[in-house]
């Protein structure tokens, strides 16, 4: 099962490498990783998407929690939550027809064309990961996808629940 795990930890050098190291050391999967400082500059927030059965996920959360630098770990997917990812994707637009189609597609997905050149468009898209995946699939059917960069998932729980000290 796919899970989104949020971690609140000391914003210290080395703290990130401990988390990343833990995943490789224990054979856990990392599907995406998103790291920034929080509104409190002494803290960082890491969002990891991973997958595994319940036992693996339990170990992942416990192992992260055990790190000395970590305050809190939350499995966002346990409750209702929001998740967003941002993607920049560059597609080939060799002719008028494809240009028009790409534009239409971007509109349908509520994306913005943020860069235009003679032979390609770059589209910015946000949303849950499956929406970005769907866009890539559709775009691939239509034209050449030249490259795409994604930020990885970030997420919050809905309602009053919050990850803070």
């Amino acid at each position, binding site marked *: 099962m796919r899970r989104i795990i949020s971690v609140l930890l000391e914003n210290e050098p080395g703290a990130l490498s401990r988390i990343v*190291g833990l995943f490789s050391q224990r054979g856990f999967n990392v599907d995406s990783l998103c790291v920034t400082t929080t509104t409190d500059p002494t803290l960082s927030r890491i969002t990891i998407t991973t997958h595994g059965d319940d036992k693996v996920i*339990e*170990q992942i959360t416990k*192992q992260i929690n055990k790190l*000395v*630098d970590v*305050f809190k770990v939350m499995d966002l997917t346990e409750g209702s939550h929001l998740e967003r990812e941002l993607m920049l994707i560059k597609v080939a637009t060799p002719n008028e027809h494809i240009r028009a189609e790409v534009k239409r597609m971007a509109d349908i997905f509520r994306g913005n064309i943020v860069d235009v050149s003679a032979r390609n468009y770059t589209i910015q898209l946000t949303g849950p990961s499956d929406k970005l995946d769907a866009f890539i699939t559709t775009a691939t059917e239509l034209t050449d996808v030249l490259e795409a960069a994604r930020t990885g998932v970030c997420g919050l729980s809905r309602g009053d629940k919050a990850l803070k000290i």
Partner: protein
Amino acid sequence: MEMMSGAEMVVRALKDVGVEYVFGYPGGAVLDIYDALFAQDDVKHILVRHEQAAAHMADGYARSTGKTGTVLVTSGPGATNTITGIATAYMDSIPMVVLSGQVPSQHIGEDAFQETDMVGCSRPIVKHSFLVKKAEDIPVAIAKAYYIANSGRPGPVVIDLPKDIVNIQESHPYEYPEDFSIRSYNPTEKGHNKQIKKAVEAIKAAKRPVVYAGGGALGASRKLIKLAEMLNAPVTNTLMGLGAFPGTHEQFVGMLGMHGTLEANKTMHNADCIIALGARFDDRVTNNVEKFCPYARIVHVDIDPTSISKTVNAHIPIVGAVDKVLSQFFDHLKDIDQDTQKEKLQDWWKQIRQWQSRKCLNYATASEVIKPQEVIQSLYKHTDGKAYVSSDVGQHQMFAALYYPFDKPRQWINSGGLGTMGFGLPAAMGVQFAHPDAISAVVTGDGSIQMNIQELSTCLQYNLPIKIISLNNRALGMVRQWQDMIYKGRHSHSYMESMPDFVKLAEAYGHVGMRVDHPSELDDAMARCMAIKDKLVFMDIRVDQNEHVYPMQIKFGAMDDMRLSKTERT
């Protein structure tokens, strides 16, 4: 405030934290610290011959006292030489602080001379680490490191000290932080009350209980005995937990696991309630987890939540320190009646006594060749069962664990988790520093002893009267045993063709060497060895090369599927 250099701050903070001994080896990056050590004698420095051994000495010191061991090494090779020692401590949850020198801050990342990313290299095998950036941070880093190392589930902590911050030319104000907190680190000591109640109910309801105690119970020995006697329950210890419950107690059924006793494994397999205390259901215990203890409700007490339900699912998990949780148990066990309890477990004990009557540790002696088991029994006899016994890794380790019943916690010192050959001698040295008047013996093999043999020189320098009991079978015995059993006796590289003359070797290092070949000489030789109080004695004891360690679990089987000898199985 007192002013001092970074190097002096290091030494002073070690003193303030209560460090007696530092096991170390100098080099460029730590010369300033060595200079500060030279100027005082509160913190005693022990000069080793190899940094790996420094870590094992600190480890042996820690295991035998419960205090934190301290290591000091230079950057680069000095630091990397400690890696095996750190990993050994990590696997067995031993409190240790390793201070490593580092190249000056401004050269970090430049591949400077003797630069290694020690924080990076050690990351997967430490509980935590610090790269100190400013001299002012030294006291706090040291205070925190010792606190982290020896609280919660203990473990090794590395402090990397760039050379510029310990520079003796500069002065800084020194203040030891009496009061500090680590806001993200709060280990749970007390068990959750609801869980405690559930556990006690399960324990009371049990008709076939067993207490399975590991290294995490070493600090709670008295309470463990109280619990067992209250319940009249059988007790088994892991390899790490030996001594937590007295080996000669009539409720003790022996060590469990791969080379556990038949009765321990049978008791576990047939139990209806397992009370696991500070043990982690590791693969050398459980055998095939699919077939593990099918009838048992499992109460698992451990200070480390990750140990719970990692390999075997716990029905009643309790996160907390064994010592604290046992006190909580007692609050709810006040009404337990020992006579009723005895009666309730009567059938269970009848069954257990029957398994014990198989006498799985019996072995055939021979008139012309010494059996390794009899060496351990002789050691037991001539030390009144009171020695600190450190061990290396191999057959001799299992023989020592099985044939020397340890009555006290911290008496048995071995690398259970990592299985590090070369651990024994330096660990026994750490033990001897901590307990100068006790007998510190090492049970070792001709393979293992050669992995840190250079420390014989350190033993001479500090006059350590260690007793080295080397079971010399002219082979890497444990490897050979597996080759006999699984590889049709193809002894690929498990044989050593050029053994040194260990007696001469011991003498060359200034010690006493003894060679024992014949069973009839064994007891006398052991007595002579123990009578030499002021010198290290190296006993080179020629034992049967073809002996195997039994009992032994059969791979992929249940806990109690075991070979009992070369020809018999359960």
